[in-house]
Structures are given as C-alpha cells and as structure tokens.
C-alpha cells in the first residue's frame, strides 16, 4: 500500500516528531538559502493543483528541487479536468507516467483519500476541501517549536472561520496529539459545537478576548469567502469582533506569537499592525514550509523512513 501523507489525524506522535526533526535538519543556515541535496535524485513528483495556490505549490516545488527530484506542476485549468475527465481517470493517467508521488490539492474534502483507494502511487495531500492540510500543520508546529517552546501544555488560540478551515483541523489533530490546549474561536455559525469532540484538549468560545487571554500562540485564519455558501458577516462586523489588533496582544502571554497560514487579508481578519508586529512569525511559517515539505517528500519518496537522529 502506498505510504503517502493524507492527513495528520492518522499519524502517530512519533511519526510527526520524526518529520519535524528532519525538517529542522533541512532548515537553512542564517542568511543562506536552502541547501541542495541529491537525496531524491532520479525521483519525480507531480504537483496537481485543482485549486489555485501560490505559496503551497511553490513551496512543494522548491522542496522537491532542493532534494534533487524532478517536479512537474499542473493546475486544473490546464489539465483535462475541463474536458470532463473524471478525477480517477486523470490520476490514473498521471500515474501511468510513473512519478514517484503525486502532490494534490482539491476543493473536495476527502478527494485524495478517495483516490488513494484506487491508486498504488503515494498521494501527498496539499489541502482537501475543508478537511485537512497536513503540511501546514507540520510547518506550524515546526515554527512554534523553533521558538523554543514545547507543544505540551501550550495554549493555542485558533481564530476565524474554523468550520471551513482545513488548516484548523490539521492543527487541532497535531496539537492534540502533543497535549496542547487548543481554543477554537469564531462566530457561532463558523464554529460547530461538535468540534470539541474531534480531539482531546479542545475548547470553544465565540469571544475573542477569552480565546487570546494567556495564549502562547495566536493562529489567525483567513475568512474563506469561497467556501461559505450562505450570507456571512459584513467585513467590518467581522473585523470588529474577530479581527486581530495590537490591543489583543496585551491579553496574551508576553512572548506569544502570531501565526497565519496566508494569504492574509489585512483589515479583514488581521490588522496590518498585528501582521507586521514583532510577534508575527508569518514569514517564518513560509520558510518552514519548505523544510517541512522536504522532510515529507523524503519520507514519502525515498523509500526509507526519516529519522532525524541518524540521518545526518
């Protein structure tokens, strides 16, 4: 059976730790770019994006190239999807070209899980609908750990459109496995009650101040306008109640960090001042995206398990 990466939920704490350790190894030295390896020489990976993406796709491409793999990127508009081909047929066709893995983003929750049942080739989930975005959670964890913190006992506030967020789900699964306290916060219509049952250590609140109080990590989410199928908040109303501003940061711990998976909408869910503040690690997240994805690609494509302790 193919060993891809479909989600965080199915991973063990040890598997996650191994990826995070290996990602640290791939991090660039101060002031330098990512080192080039030939760990995946002769390997090929296809980036198949059925949703637009700049950062995730670029990040995967760079990660593949830094490991020495060939990387091909396809976006839905350029593929045969528009010609009415089914998803299974599209994937089978690509699989016949013998890549070693397919990285896939799709607007339908579970699309890669569904495909993996029919395909031998490992699939790496680069975001499926409103379900999971595993590499985002891994890079977020890497970023938190880089601050010297331990995940256990950490208070992490995730704020915004939780209902439609694959970033939130993957982060909840990951942080919960490591014993963090997770506070999910957003307007009631975007914060289903059942969220508190999907993992341990999760609490819910519709009050932003309550969520941020004593938080070690404040993770803001983008308002997913494209996934909301009903009238939502007006932009100004949303920002008033769920937009992160500098005054909120006083409620958090003094060393709290502000995270955002991007792309950020300044003035919508985060003020410019908060996004650019000293607390913001948004660009560190982007950078860690590459080292985490290098670790994931190596794990999936090299045929051997990553082991941060001995791989040096």
């Amino acid at each position: 059976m193919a060993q891809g990466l479909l989600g965080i939920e199915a991973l063990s704490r040890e598997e996650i730790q191994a990826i995070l350790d290996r990602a640290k190894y791939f991090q660039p030295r101060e002031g330098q770019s990512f080192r080039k390896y030939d760990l995946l020489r002769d390997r090929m990976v296809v980036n198949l994006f059925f949703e637009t993406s700049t950062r995730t796709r670029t990040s995967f491409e760079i990660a593949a190239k830094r490991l020495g793999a060939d990387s091909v990127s396809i976006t839905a508009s350029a593929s045969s999807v528009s010609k009415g081909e089914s998803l299974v047929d599209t994937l089978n066709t690509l699989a016949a070209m013998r890549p070693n893995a397919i990285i896939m983003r799709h607007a339908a929750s579970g699309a890669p899980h569904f495909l993996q049942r029919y395909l031998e080739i490992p699939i790496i989930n680069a975001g499926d609908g409103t379900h999971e975005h595993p590499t985002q959670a891994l890079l977020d964890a890497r970023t938190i750990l880089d601050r010297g913190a331990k995940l256990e006992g950490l208070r992490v506030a995730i704020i915004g459109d939780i209902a439609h967020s694959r970033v939130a789900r993957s982060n909840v699964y990951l942080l919960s496995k490591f014993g963090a306290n997770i506070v999910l916060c957003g307007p009631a219509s975007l914060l289903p009650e059942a969220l508190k049952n999907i993992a341990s250590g999760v609490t819910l609140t519709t009050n932003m101040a309550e969520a941020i109080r004593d938080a070690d990590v404040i993770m803001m989410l983008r308002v997913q306008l494209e996934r909301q199928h009903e009238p939502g908040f007006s932009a100004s109303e949303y920002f008033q109640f769920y937009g992160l501003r500098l005054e909120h940061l006083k409620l958090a711990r003094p060393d709290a960090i502000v995270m955002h998976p991007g792309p950020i909408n300044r003035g919508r869910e985060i003020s410019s001042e908060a996004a650019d503040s000293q607390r913001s690690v948004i660009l560190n997240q982007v950078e860690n995206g590459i080292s985490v994805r290098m670790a994931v690609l190596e794990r999936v494509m090299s045929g051997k398990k990553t082991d941060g302790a001995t791989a040096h």
Partner: protein
Amino acid sequence: MAQLLIKNGRVIDPASHHDGVADVWIEDGVIKGVGVSLPTAGSEVFDATGLIVAPGFIDMHVHLREPGFEHAETIESGSRAAAAGGFTSVCPMPNTKPVNDNATVTSYMIEKARRHAVVNVFPIGAITKGSAGEELAAIGSMKQAGAVAISDDGRPVMNARVMRRAMEFARSLGIPVINHCEDLHLSAGGDMHEGAESVRLGLRGIPGCSEDVMVARDILLAEVTGARYHVAHISSRHSVEMVQFAKTRGLAVTAEATPHHLALADRDMKPYDSNYKMKPPLRGSCDVTAVLEGIVNGAIDAIATDHAPHPGSEKMQEFESCPFGILGLETAIGISLEQLVHPGKIGIGRLVELFTTGPARILGLDRGTLAPGAPADVTIFSADHEWTYDVNKSFSKSRNSPFDGKTFKGGPVATVVAGEVVWRG
C-alpha cells in the same frame, strides 16, 4: 390448472393471525387455503421445511430509474432484484425522466412492468408537475391509471400551501401523501449527517432538524386536511417522536424506515466512500436507536428500502460530487433480521407485518395476506441460514451498496408472484 403447494413451512400471516407450520395451497395465481397436510396430488410442490412462509413482501419505496435512467436500473432489472430480495411488490418513486407526473408516464411504467417485471409494480405519482414543488400534478388521472400514492421523493415540497392543497386533493381521492422530509434551506449543500463525524471529515452537514421541521409542518397540515400522510425513510429521533405524537392524536400519520438506517450510523461510514452516501444521511447513534425503538413501539409502520441504484461512473467520484442513494432490495430481509429479530427487539411476526400489512394498509393495497382469495404472492425466507452478499452478483444494474461482502444470518429463499416461483436462491 396451475397449482402450487408450499409444504411444511412456518406460515406467518399477521392479517389472519396465523403463525404455525402449515401448507399453502395456490391455484391459478390465488391463495386457495392454508392448512395442515393438504393433498399434494397434481400440484407442483415447494418443500418449505424449516423456512418461513409469509405473504409477499411489499417495498413501498424504490427507484427503478425507468424511464430515463435505464443505465442505472430498469423496471425489469429492478424487479429481478426485488424478487431476489424477497419482495413481490414494489412502488417506484416518480423521479424518473420524464417525471411520473401524469397518467401517460404512469401507464407506461405499468405497461413496461406488465411485460418485463417479475414482481408487481405499483407506481407512485408526483405531487407537483416535474416535482418542481409549484403546481399540482395530474394526481386524479394518475390515480386512475394505477398510481397508489403521491410523492415528490427526493425533492420535498417546500411550499406549505402547495403541500396543503396536495393533501386536500389526495384525501378526496383516497390516496396517501408521502413526503421526503428535508427542509432544503437547512440541508443545503450537505453531504452527510451534521455532527462530530461531518466536522471531522470536513464535509457539509445535513442536520437532523432539516428533517424534523418538515415532519412537524406536515403533521400539522395532515391534521388540518385530514389527509393520510406518510413520512418516507424516517431517520431522526425527533421525527420519530413526532410521528408517535401524531398517532396518539389519532391522525392518519404513518412512517417507514430503511434497513440501512437501522443498521448504520454516521460513524460507521467508511470515510469518503459514496456507498455510504444517501438521503436522509446515516444519522447519529441516538437516532438509530430511536428508529429501532420506533419500530418496536409501533411509531414506524413499515420497512422500505429506498433502493436507489446509481452506476459506478457516478458513484466513483469525490464524495461531494456523488449522487445520493444506495441499493437496498436484496439485503433488506437480512439486515432487518440482524437488527430487529436476532437481538430480540421484535418477533418474526412483527417483522412480517412491517413488510406486508404495514405497507399494504398505508397504500390501501389488497395484498399482504395469505387469506383465501388473495393474490398468491408469497415470500419464503429463512431466519437462520448464513449467506454472504456479493454485490457483483446483484440483479440490479448498479453496484452501490455498503453491504457488499457482509454475511447475514437469514434471508430470502424463494419468491412467488401470482402463484409463480419467480426467484429461488
């Protein structure tokens, strides 16, 4: 004279309060009598020793897809699947293409069935033209052509005034109104039951309340109009409570449950496997418990399969793109025995009622009994033999079942329609 003697089975006929080992004597498509050691001379004999012999089972809720979607099912293939599931009568819903909203389509279906079907087919007509929910369909002429009820199954009547008029008209014609209860504004875009599982899987939810608000509305309208009103595929615990409440108020309100809603909850579904995608969706465990309880206490009157074939090309897609519905005819008895009889919730007699007198009374059909003079429709089944469902051997043209590979204890053995053995396992 064509004669058939079904010998030595345990004959259960709830309508005539019969339960005991006996023979059933059939002549020219009609039940001649039930008795002990009837003479065999000149008859074809079916030895039913160790088996249960019951009036022919009626599935009041199926989709035969003809006309319009013959790639998924035809009246003939669906009828063969029905026979293999122990059903002697089925009621196809009107969501064909064209919609069965006039006597021409009703007559077409009946004529097709007369020529090709191996079981009885009693079509259900649409409530509104094109099942669009606006203008009443030609209900009277469909009834004259042979429609036994009206329903816009799959496309619930959202306009309460239209529903009220339909109920008034149906009452005057003496036929029941069947509704697929789902407030489309509340369920919009949903793919599975709204709850922890939908949140976990990132799929949009169909809340239980989308069913409940329409059941509540319809019960109130049934009281206003005096209509016979039937809740299709009831799945939510509050809906079961409300149907029970309507019954205690003396209203002519009935309900059916599907086998899959007895057997599976949302947490049982294989993630993103469209063989678990149907409407109403597999609900929470407490809803499953309530539906089972509703069968035990009589709130629910019938078991109906909502047999909904879809070809592989449609079901093999991303979950949210797949159509709703699963096969049901061939596994109904096996699942019902497993969920209701084997755990001791109900006796086999009550099970037979749910498949015979239950639907027959709701629809006003002159069937569901082995009384002398009744049409000789007989379902012969076992309550204990083990068998495994292989969907690839299904008589249906489609393969969308979550029960493929499942082993059952008890199931259909032979099906007799109008005195002819139309299927034998």
